[in-house]
């Protein structure tokens, strides 16, 4: 019995030691068979567009928002007459294997254009499949470089992770947000470390003063007292958080509990913090985040999008909804720009050839997540990031 017990203990100890290596995402959601279609009238003049998203599970906030944004754009496009779209979203629960199955379901359905995946790890899996089949993919929000790297047919609507880190450092430096900066990132997550590494490189170049760098892992994401104390005792007045909103909410609460009130700066993973159930929004007051979209922007395009979205879903759209919306319009514009070279009766791979030529060939697109976007041959977008600050529980644009 004692021997058996010690084997168990050693096994568990090993799990604990090794848990720093994987990027785990415990997001097996409910097992509802998901998938939804926004149908258009005919079929011979209709493009079939598919995508995978976490419609259930811990990141469902992102998936549902993208799907709703895309559905809204499809409804608007179809109402114009002319080019018609049919949209099919499949649930991937933010699991790579589920996403691969979802991709195959979409292929059987006859998908011609792929909206890729909403989050990065499923995106890496579906990109490989889409590259093999030569289907054109445009991901709304899978920001890892691995989603596009090595494929000529996958494009991103969102910033790639390295750009987020660089842009954050540039923004802090330009606006002189903090004199002493602390960083807390999750070192077992490719998204968080990716942003941190490029942030650090750019910060050194710009001469930003990083006084404290601390980490956490999935298995130690409860207690942040040490990380917060380190930042506080080194006098940091700005904390950069390239992490998702769930651990960020704990950091806000624990810093407030010891009366430490620095400025916080987050990236797109922070988006969603205001929708966290039971979260005290006062804790997020003054939090800044880098996002390509701010719902209170005054331009006509954004104002129309926000009011139509609110009317249809009763919520203010977040950046993920905006990404989904822009993806559909970017594809719509690209098809129009081809002057009839792309038709709904073509095979997916032929459409891909044409769309790749458009996107990599200097096509510009202005949408709600940025004006005059262009794409390079690696599929990465070039656009100006916007920063928003949380005031009275809503996002307000910064300059």
């Amino acid at each position, binding site marked *: *019995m*004692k021997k*058996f*017990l*010690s084997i*168990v*203990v*050693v096994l*568990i*100890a*090993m*799990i*604990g*030691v090794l*848990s*720093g290596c994987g990027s785990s995402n*415990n*997001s*097996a*959601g*409910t*097992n509802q068979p998901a998938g939804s279609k926004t149908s258009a009238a005919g079929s011979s003049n209709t493009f079939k567009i598919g995508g995978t998203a976490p419609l*259930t*599970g*811990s990141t*469902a*906030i992102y998936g549902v928002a993208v799907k709703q944004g895309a559905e809204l754009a499809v409804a608007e496009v179809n109402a114009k007459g002319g080019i018609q779209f049919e949209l099919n979203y499949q649930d991937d629960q933010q699991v790579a294997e589920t996403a691969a199955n979802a991709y195959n379901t979409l292929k059987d359905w006859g998908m011609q254009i792929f909206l890729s995946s909403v989050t990065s790890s499923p995106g890496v899996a579906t990109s490989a499949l889409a590259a093999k089949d030569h289907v054109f993919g445009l991901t709304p929000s899978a920001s890892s470089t691995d989603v596009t790297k090595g494929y000529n047919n996958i494009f991103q609507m969102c910033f790639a992770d390295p750009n987020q880190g660089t842009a954050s450092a540039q923004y802090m430096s330009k606006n002189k947000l903090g004199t002493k900066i602390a960083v807390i990132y999750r*070192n077992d997550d490719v998204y968080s470390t990716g942003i941190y590494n490029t942030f650090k490189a750019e910060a050194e170049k710009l001469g930003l003063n990083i006084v404290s760098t*601390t*980490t*956490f*892992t*999935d*298995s*130690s994401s*409860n*207690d942040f*007292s*040490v*990380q917060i*104390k*380190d930042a506080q*005792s080194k006098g940091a007045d700005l904390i950069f958080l390239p992490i998702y909103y*769930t*651990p960020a*909410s*704990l950091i806000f*609460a624990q810093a*407030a*509990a*010891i*009366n430490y009130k620095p400025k916080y700066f987050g990236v797109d993973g922070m988006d969603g913090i205001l929708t*966290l*159930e*039971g*979260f*005290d929004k006062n804790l997020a007051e003054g939090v800044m985040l880098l996002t390509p979209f701010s719902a209170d922007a005054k331009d006509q395009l954004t104002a129309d999008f926000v009011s139509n979205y609110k009317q249809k879903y009763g919520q203010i759209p977040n950046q993920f909804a905006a990404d989904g919306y822009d993806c559909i319009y970017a594809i719509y514009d690209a098809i129009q720009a081809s002057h009839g070279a792309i038709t709904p009766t073509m095979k997916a791979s032929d459409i891909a050839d044409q769309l790749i030529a458009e996107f990599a060939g200097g096509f510009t697109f202005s949408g709600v997540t940025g004006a005059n976007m262009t794409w390079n041959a690696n599929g990465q977008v070039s656009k100006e990031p916007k920063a928003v600050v949380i005031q009275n529980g809503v996002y307000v644009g910064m300059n």
Partner: protein
Amino acid sequence: MVFLFHLISGLSLGSIYAIIALGYTMVYGIAKMLNFAHGDVIMVGGYISFFASSAWGLPPVVSLFLAIIVCIVLGVTIERLAYKPLRHATSLAVLITAIGVSYLLQNAAQLLWTSNPKVFTSIVGFTHFAPLGGKLDISLIAIVTVAVSAVIMALLTWFTGQTKIGKAMRACSEDRGASQLMGINVDFTISVTFAIGAALAAVAGVLMCSMYPTLTPTTGAMPGIKAFTAAVFGGIGSIPGAMLGGVLLGIIEIFAKAYISTQLSDTIVFVVLILVLLVKPTGLLGRKITEKV
């Protein structure tokens, strides 16, 4: 001053591990099984308290008692349905069953309450003290947690040492067959043990969620494993050992993070554990039992 701050953080984190470890050690000591579903009972306790206080608006103390009651019912039911039929099976079979129950609870929670995180409201509020002229800052929940775990340890020591049912538990722990011959109702005793373990899990869940207020269906998994480690560290089966192991584990974890590396803290914790077990295989306060043939 920073050292004191870290010590208090370590103490309060350690006290949570200690309460969970007490549950592990009780069940192991008496039923001789590793109840890996213990961590997930903690999660259920957290959810019950969350819904009781935020959805139904019950006062914190009532929500705590509701969580305790639900967890006791759950713990006893699990024992009756999943473990009792395996009482004479090999320990490996019971262990696998316990892991199965753990996954069952996690997935059931995902179905029932979705995996979107919920933010728990602390049962004692956000009060904190600033002694020593404001140089130090201690939250009330940290004090409550340390106090509750000390009280629970004292109560359990008294309970197993002095009461009739407590003595029955110790008898079962020493020799189940002989205690049955002496007229002790073994099944009932084991059920009571599970009820106590589940009640402790509910208390741990509510305290843990008060301190670290994010609640997901996997909330209990990692603290459960760490607390199990703490129980073994202190000497599984021993009540003061679980307390000592839990508190030490919390302090080592926080100090490793603060003074060595935040990246390596988990590695350091488990390396310390492995070293202790190499030197003292029965844990810090574990009794060495020589098996008589």
